[in-house]
């Protein structure tokens, strides 16, 4: 057994508690229009992009001087002819030339556009028409396991304790505009109710696959509606099976309560301004059990013990952990996680 010598903790898996400079992506389909340029600084709430809701492909002719320099992805406004009123002329994005020359192009356009506001402040790293906008976020970020819905911004509120579960009946319009931390799990009914009540996002420790699929189906139905819907996202911190929110993360949420935070979907993360925030301290030997039968438990690593035999006759590298409120047990190293 290895004693508590310097460095032995390094073999216990770890991940950063919070990170800085996270890069997030906002997808652009052909025809969508970026309202920012690479290098620009955006604040939360600034216009970021316009999405076409009724995307179609038109053919358009280009004058000879424009045809030589035209490029796919370029914005283009067809010339008005005759008595057509300017408001009926819609601009769009050049998709590809019609075969046989570069003076006629296919153009993606549409009548109805939804404007997306930046859910997070940061610097625009890259704009690729028809592909994506990449933004380096300002502030600190807490990474999750996966997310669904769309990126959103709101004030953080705690709806339950770290072990709790939020039911649909527990959500009302008083939560409108908030990003709710809901404890260990939530079901699809509560998610759709939260969205209907104007909640901007949910942060939860775990979300079973069935609830995720039901929520995603509901999202698809919402997006198919004619009216734009406010952004709403779900950030899952740990996984699909039920467990608590780790206590350092919960302490961070408590410190962030009432502040504006951004919930990002790609990558899954919660971004917040940490300029005047004191992050909760995490002891170097603190671990939580990330997976396995003891998932959700927390404690202190006492030692790294070497190979041990576990259930099903499986030999794994192990650590001795003093579980909070319980005894000392040997657990597979792969099931443990520290925050650094």
């Amino acid at each position, binding site marked *: 057994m*290895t004693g508590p010598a310097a460095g032995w903790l390094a073999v216990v*898996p770890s991940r950063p508690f919070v990170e800085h400079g996270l890069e997030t992506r906002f997808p652009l389909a*052909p025809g969508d229009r970026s309202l920012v340029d690479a290098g620009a600084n955006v604040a939360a709430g600034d216009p970021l992009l316009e999405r076409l809701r009724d995307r179609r492909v038109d053919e358009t002719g280009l004058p000879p001087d424009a045809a030589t320099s035209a490029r796919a992805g370029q914005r283009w406004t067809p010339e008005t002819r005759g008595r057509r009123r300017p408001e009926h002329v819609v601009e769009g994005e050049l998709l590809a030339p019609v075969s046989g020359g570069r003076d006629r192009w296919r153009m993606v356009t549409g009548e109805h556009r939804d404007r997306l506001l930046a859910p997070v402040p940061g610097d625009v790293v890259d704009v690729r028409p028809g592909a994506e906008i990449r933004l380096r976020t300002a502030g600190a970020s807490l990474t999750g396991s*996966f997310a669904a819905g769309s990126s959103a911004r709101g004030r953080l509120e705690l709806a339950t304790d770290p072990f709790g579960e939020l039911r649909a009946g527990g959500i009302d319009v008083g939560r409108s505009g908030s990003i709710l931390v809901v404890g260990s799990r939530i079901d699809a009914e509560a998610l759709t109710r939260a969205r209907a009540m104007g909640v901007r996002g949910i942060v939860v420790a775990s979300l079973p696959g069935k609830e995720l699929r039901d929520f995603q189906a509901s999202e698809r139905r919402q997006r198919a509606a004619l009216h734009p819907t406010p952004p709403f996202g779900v950030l899952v911190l740990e996984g699909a099976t039920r467990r608590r929110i780790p206590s350092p993360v919960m302490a961070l949420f408590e410190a962030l309560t009432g502040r504006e935070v951004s919930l990002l979907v790609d990558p899954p993360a919660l971004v917040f301004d940490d300029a005047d925030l004191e992050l909760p301290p995490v002891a170097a030997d603190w671990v939580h059990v990330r997976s396995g039968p003891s998932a959700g438990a927390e404690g202190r690593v006492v030692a790294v013990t070497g190979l041990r035999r576990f259930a099903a006759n499986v030999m794994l*590298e192990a650590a001795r952990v003093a579980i909070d409120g319980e005894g000392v047990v040997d657990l597979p190293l792969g099931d443990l996680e520290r925050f650094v």
Partner: protein
Amino acid sequence: MSSEPRAFAAVDRGTATVAASLIGRVAGHWRLLGATAAPISVDPDALLERLRGRLVEADPPLAKQLGLADPEGVADLPRVGCETTAPPEIAVVGATARVAAPLAEAATGAGWRVHRVVLDGASILSSAAALANPRVSAILAGAGDPPGADERPLLADLTALVGATTERRPDVVAVLSGGLADPGGRYEAAIASDRPGATLLAPSPTVGGGGPLRELLDSLRGGEADGRRGLAVATGTLAGVLGRRVEVVEVGQAAGVRVVATPGGPGRDATVASAVVAEAALLPRGFGEPHLDSVVGWLTIPLDRLRVRDRLRELAVSPWGDAAGEGALLRLAAVRGAVRRLLEATPWMDAGPAPDVLVAAGGAWSVAPGPAIALALADVVRRPGVRALGLDHARLLAPLGTIEDPDERRRVITDLRDELLVPLGTVVMPAGLRGGRSVGRIEVRGAAGSTELDLVPGGLELVDLPPGERAVVELRFRDPVTLGPKARHFAVEATGGLGGLLVDLRDVPLRLPERLERRRDLLTAWQAALWSGLDR
């Protein structure tokens, strides 16, 4: 690696885990001193320091002799290392499905994650959107040579779309194949030559069975010290050292790899064929119902589909976690599904004779007991013949494959030949058995004596043959069967291993009951014979 060091470290950084080994020179030969693995977040130096500490505890004089008595010893160690990353993504575009299919197959076998785009019947908008996917780093466009009547009307659109995509994404690599690969022709001219991304002309997928196109696409994947290339190189060297045909099936978090190497004879290099298949990852991206079926079909624990899906999502989030108990069974079921996909994606590698040695590699296998791995290999690699089974337990093959000097690599692998692989046993797998109570007899003559058994079709007979032992296996069938050649009487040599000798008289290919409960009972019965301590 510098010449003649006393010890060196080998590090294999995968997408989910990192493996580290210490190799030292003992009595003039390289020996494996220790190996371990951990989640990818763990610094390999910490693992090497742990191995060094174990060596110091176990054999202080040896540690001192190798310069590993102090912690500084690890920092100064020469290293061979490799890294595997998630496969890059490629858009494969053709005018018709007939043209796109072989292109996609070549790209799949070359280690790319493929997005197939077929213009025929699709809207120009959806095709353009698929090609503009920001995760795509290359486009493979092709046409028949000469183009077929079904694709000619669409070639102008195909050219326009590919040209437009390179305007949107000047950095993307464009590969023109078959009928589009006319040097200086109109298809190449449609792509700007002054952009940062390369434009390449490639052979048609019909040339050489797709091999030349696969090789070109494989070379575009990039990545220095690529672990998958290292695995192929080391497998070739191992085949030369052993003088036997070696096949490796690696299952990783991001892709599966299959390598087949045939020794080249005295003074000649081995012939190596390899394929990296993203779809053969333990849990491929875009995991759907067919993938779930492939796992559930091998499960020996009664979990409903929702629960299995949740457990697999957990496995995707923490690939190193929940490795004991039911987690181990679930993982091995997922591995079986992945190997099946790997074999199905690489049919051209079945053309030669069956391998003499079959090796399981990759982190996904590493948690199961050896005999259970032997059974899993026998379950999914269903080719008639006799083959030894091994496990690349320390994940040494890939890093050793990065040793550039072939002579030095051969010397190291020759020294380590008995330690590179954990011997899992030998499997005897005849095909073409007729039904009945008994189809013949088997006699196994080893150092411990002789064992004789009836050969009952449909079953799995186990003969105890410990690691290090050899035995002569004599099989007499009533009717001719296929075991390599087709005959009634065979006498072969078998090597021992953790699983002993497996005489696999089940169907080739394996047929399992459709009903889930019956299927599970049968799998459980086979597994119980080879996985001791399952109930603990």
